[in-house]
């Protein structure tokens, strides 16, 4: 029997290349290509007065300098559309004031790092020399930095957008305000999360070559959405789309930032390549990545809840002020996710979610792993802790009482999710997850441990957080599966890979469906030459979308193989099976060469009536007779030559994975340093395709969560300068800062798709800020309401706490009932 591959933690197919330095990332391509550097705005908000390139012109190695005027002239002379703003990818009726940037700034810059001049030179060193000699005169305008300034709107980012408000959106189920007003208990929380960023180890990059003879443009780009970049380039440069090829080579991490498209550079580099008739490449450096790509997370939030004596939610109102930066190319995805996924595994009673998406003179905000979910999770989990503290209940008890129960699935929240479809949970078992988490972390025995630690002068705390994650959003992905006459199986899907092991995971699926050894399956992703219709890699969607598409395509191939084999072997298809790449009659012992079996390679030969005997397989096929009488066409009307198939998977709506994390932290009573003693994860993403890969995704997500909770932030000054735009000061965790993650799994299959899988890519990062806020609050005895938190900030909070400016948790102060406040929060009880 062939070992079943789905569910096996097999090593990755892509690794031998990558561990020997044979990967091909963007900057590894195009040796000898011309190189690009940009003059980028040094100001957060300014009018461009003029651009003087005189001093730059005599630099040896300079090839070209382009400004907005050149784009306008090109549009005038041809049919390109480069002088128009970049597209708004995801319009939304509530995004009443969208704004996107020009590829090169026209007359105004709106954040530090916005591209103003493009320089092409013989190498990057020279290109930077040229940039240094170009003088741009700016009239500096007042900058709007931070949510407070955006809300205040004393100054406007875009003069025609009142109040700096790009969008205001409300979703409501029931009358939340009335339900809260009528509830026996009420709490109000003010919360805040700061900016972080995807920060993949490889920045962005684009390499283009124009074949003037063939009139074909090939563009390599470090993207999460190759097919969409292709469409954008074709439209912007007015090249027929069938003459444009876009390839995502090996991509050194994405985490969301590379799903934005087209980036200005993705249209400018190919444009320059066509114009110059030369290969042109741009490799983003780290400073550029900080100030010219995208950030995420920054929100202020207000939660109002009403609940009963048991802590059950009766009504919840959630208001979010979301900082989307200078432009809105990616629409409202992030705040929509925050205000829907805030609900987690709970039944909120009546719910009102409302957000304002606001302009600031800072780098744009687009999804970073988690995409608004970490913020939503933070709000809900801080609320659960507040309710528990208010009522004097264990934090797990309040959560349990609010859980959606397994028998209530599918559960309809009555809201609209990011994909425009209903927010309907397909399956899940939240009580079981919580039980597993409590067992894993030792929740019930922690009090004893904490007591003992306290006696030793140590301060420890435990925290937990729960989340539900909509994964595998549509609309579709497809896959192509072909059995070559060598017996090799090639698979292609259009979405891209940034290190998630898709080539292994998809090979496992196809190997099982076809009955071939996984070593014989080769997978290509993100190459529009191989597959042209795709959406992209984001929202934990690859296993769900491309995984199921590959399974469906493989099933078609299998059916065809059985049909052809059944003719050749003269048995009914239903009596056949495919094992180890051989179609054989069920129950008959293997006997190579016998008329009871036929290798898939031979079936592949038979599938094509044009059968030149190039190889032994073709020669062998001559012993089998397939096809009808000589009166019929060699390829039947409803048939095609070749043993291949394409299929698509398009789900009615998203599938919902879930998980719960707990952490034990120790805070130094003197230095306020925060040490993670344990980090536990239980996770349910349905059926596991490759447990090792899923585990790796969780580890990596948790590490980013630790970064986002305890280390990383984007520090802007009031003029809009990013003060920590380097790895020296943007504190991505090293191994010394990341805890060992202890994991346990639950597998609740999704009823929505053939494989029963849910997405796993983003899960690890979602609850981390909430978990650490919970654990640090527990250690300190007062509520943490703003993340990330540094030792310096914790120290300052302690000082305020000691001065009586921050109320204690009731569980610590001894008065469980009566007066009490949850930090800066107003509440009353009746």
């Amino acid at each position, binding site marked *: 029997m062939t070992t079943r591959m789905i569910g096996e933690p097999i*090593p*990755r197919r*892509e*690794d*031998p290349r*990558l*561990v*020997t*330095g*044979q*990967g*091909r*990332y963007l*900057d*590894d391509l195009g*040796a000898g290509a011309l190189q690009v550097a940009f003059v980028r705005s040094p100001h957060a908000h300014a009018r461009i007065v003029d651009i003087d390139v005189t001093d730059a012109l005599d630099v*040896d190695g300079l090839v070209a300098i382009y400004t907005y005027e050149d784009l306008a002239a090109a549009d005038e002379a041809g049919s390109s559309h480069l002088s128009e703003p970049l597209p708004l990818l995801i319009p939304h009726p509530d995004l009443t004031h969208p704004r996107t940037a020009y590829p090169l700034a026209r007359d105004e810059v709106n954040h530090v790092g916005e591209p103003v001049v493009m320089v092409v030179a013989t*190498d990057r*060193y020279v290109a930077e*020399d040229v940039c*240094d*000699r170009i003088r741009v005169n700016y009239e500096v305008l007042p900058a709007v930095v931070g949510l407070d300034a955006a809300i205040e709107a004393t100054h406007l980012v875009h003069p025609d957008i009142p109040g700096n408000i790009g969008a205001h959106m409300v979703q409501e189920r029931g009358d939340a305000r009335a339900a809260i007003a009528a509830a026996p208990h009420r709490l109000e929380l003010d919360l805040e999360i700061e900016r972080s960023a995807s920060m*993949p*180890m*490889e920045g962005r990059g684009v390499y283009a070559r124009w074949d003037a003879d063939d009139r074909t443009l090939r563009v390599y780009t470090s993207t999460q959405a190759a097919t969409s970049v292709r469409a954008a380039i074709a439209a912007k440069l007015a090249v027929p789309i069938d003459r444009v090829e876009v390839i995502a080579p*090996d*991509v*050194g*991490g994405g*985490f969301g930032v590379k799903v934005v498209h087209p980036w200005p550079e993705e249209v400018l580099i190919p444009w320059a390549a066509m114009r110059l008739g030369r290969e042109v490449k741009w490799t983003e*450096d*780290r400073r550029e990545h900080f100030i010219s790509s995208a950030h995420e997370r920054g929100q202020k939030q207000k939660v109002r809840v009403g609940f009963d004596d048991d802590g059950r939610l009766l009504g919840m109102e959630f208001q979010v002020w979301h900082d989307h930066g200078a432009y809105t190319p990616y629409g409202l995805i992030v705040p929509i996710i925050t205000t829907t996924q805030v609900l987690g595994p709970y039944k909120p009673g009546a719910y009102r979610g409302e957000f304002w998406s606001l302009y600031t003179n800072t780098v744009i905000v687009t999804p970073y792993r988690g995409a608004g979910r970490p913020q939503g999770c933070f709000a809900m989990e801080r609320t659960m802790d507040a309710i528990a503290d208010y009522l004097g209940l264990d934090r797990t008890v309040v959560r349990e009482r609010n859980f959606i129960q397994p028998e209530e699935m599918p559960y309809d929240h009555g809201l609209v999710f990011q994909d425009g479809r209903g927010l309907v949970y397909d399956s899940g078992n939240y009580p079981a997850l919580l039980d597993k988490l409590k067992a894993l972390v030792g929740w019930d025995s922690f009090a004893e441990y904490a007591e003992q630690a306290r006696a030793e002068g140590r301060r420890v705390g435990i925290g937990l957080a729960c989340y539900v994650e909509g994964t595998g959003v549509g609309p579709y992905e497809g896959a192509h599966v072909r059995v070559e006459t060598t017996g090799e199986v090639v698979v292609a899907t259009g979405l891209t890979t*940034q*290190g*998630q*092991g898709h080539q292994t995971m998809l090979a496992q699926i196809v190997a099982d469906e076809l009955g071939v050894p996984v070593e014989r399956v080769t997978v290509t992703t993100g190459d529009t030459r191989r597959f042209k219709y795709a959406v992209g890699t984001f929202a934990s969607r690859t296993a769900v979308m491309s995984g199921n598409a590959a399974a469906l395509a493989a099933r078609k191939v299998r059916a065809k193989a059985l049909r052809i084999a059944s003719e050749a072997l003269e048995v009914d298809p239903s009596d056949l099976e495919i094992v180890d790449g051989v179609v054989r009659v069920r129950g008959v012992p293997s006997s190579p060469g016998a008329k009871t079996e036929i290798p898939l390679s031979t079936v592949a030969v038979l599938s094509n009536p044009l059968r030149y005997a190039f190889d032994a397989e073709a020669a062998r096929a001559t012993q089998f007779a397939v096809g009808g009488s000589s009166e019929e066409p060699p390829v039947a009307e409803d048939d095609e030559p070749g043993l291949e198939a394409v299929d698509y998977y398009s789900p009615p709506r998203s599938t919902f994975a879930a998980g719960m994390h707990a952490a034990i932290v120790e805070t130094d009573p003197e230095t306020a340093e925060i040490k993670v003693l344990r980090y536990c994860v239980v996770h349910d993403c349905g059926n596991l395709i490759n447990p*090792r*890969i899923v*585990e*790796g995704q*969780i*580890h*990596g*997500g*948790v*590490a*980013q969560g630790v970064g986002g909770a305890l280390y990383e932030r984007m520090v802007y000054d009031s003029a809009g300068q990013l003060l920590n735009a*380097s*790895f*020296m000061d943007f504190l*991505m965790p*090293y*191994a*010394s800062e*990341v805890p*060992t*993650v*202890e*994991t346990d799994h639950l597998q609740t299959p999704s009823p929505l798709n053939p494989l029963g899988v849910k997405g796993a890519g983003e899960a*690890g990062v979602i609850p981390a800020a909430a978990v650490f806020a919970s654990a640090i609050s527990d250690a300190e005895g007062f509520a943490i309401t703003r993340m990330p938190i540094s030792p310096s900030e914790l120290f300052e909070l302690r000082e305020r706490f000691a001065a009586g400016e921050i109320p204690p948790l009731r569980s610590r102060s001894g008065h469980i009932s009566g007066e009490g406040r949850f930090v800066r929060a107003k509440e009353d009880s009746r």
Partner: protein
Amino acid sequence: MTPDRGPTEQTHDISLTVNGVLRQARVPARRLLSDCLRHDLGLTGTHVGCEHGVCGACTVLVNGQPMRSCLLLAVSVDGSEITTVEGCTDPDGSLGPVQRAFMECHGLQCGFCTPGFITTIAAYLRRNPNPTPEQAREAIGGNLCRCTGYQNIVASVLRAAEIMREESGDAGVPAAGHGRGERA
């Protein structure tokens, strides 16, 4: 700001022994070793992640010592022996112990930072063949990875040590073993 460049930038002829092979290049003084390896010598396995010496993706061995190739001028290390990730294979070209360990332990995801880890670990294990899990974590403390959360890289360090012990025929009891937490 930038001093005047002459009509043509002055270049220097350098030779480096890279992965045991003598290589020559003509480079301007400012060429970083990382760029020299990648673009002048075509060894693109060495990756550039920050160009300010923090991430460690560009780590190569210079005369056996791990160093940041983005913080070295190629001309300054003229005459040195350099080992890159391409040179961390076994002599017959098959995967070296550290490379095998990364594959076995899922020590990489996107693979961009991996070359810097592999060179660093290869040098570390030569000096410390029996690391404890804590030491293994310390050994990789100067390299950033955004994908793995490091847990499986720590496991890879321990596994590589084990492979090296197996291959050297040293059947002695490993000092380290695999802590449950580190391989969980």
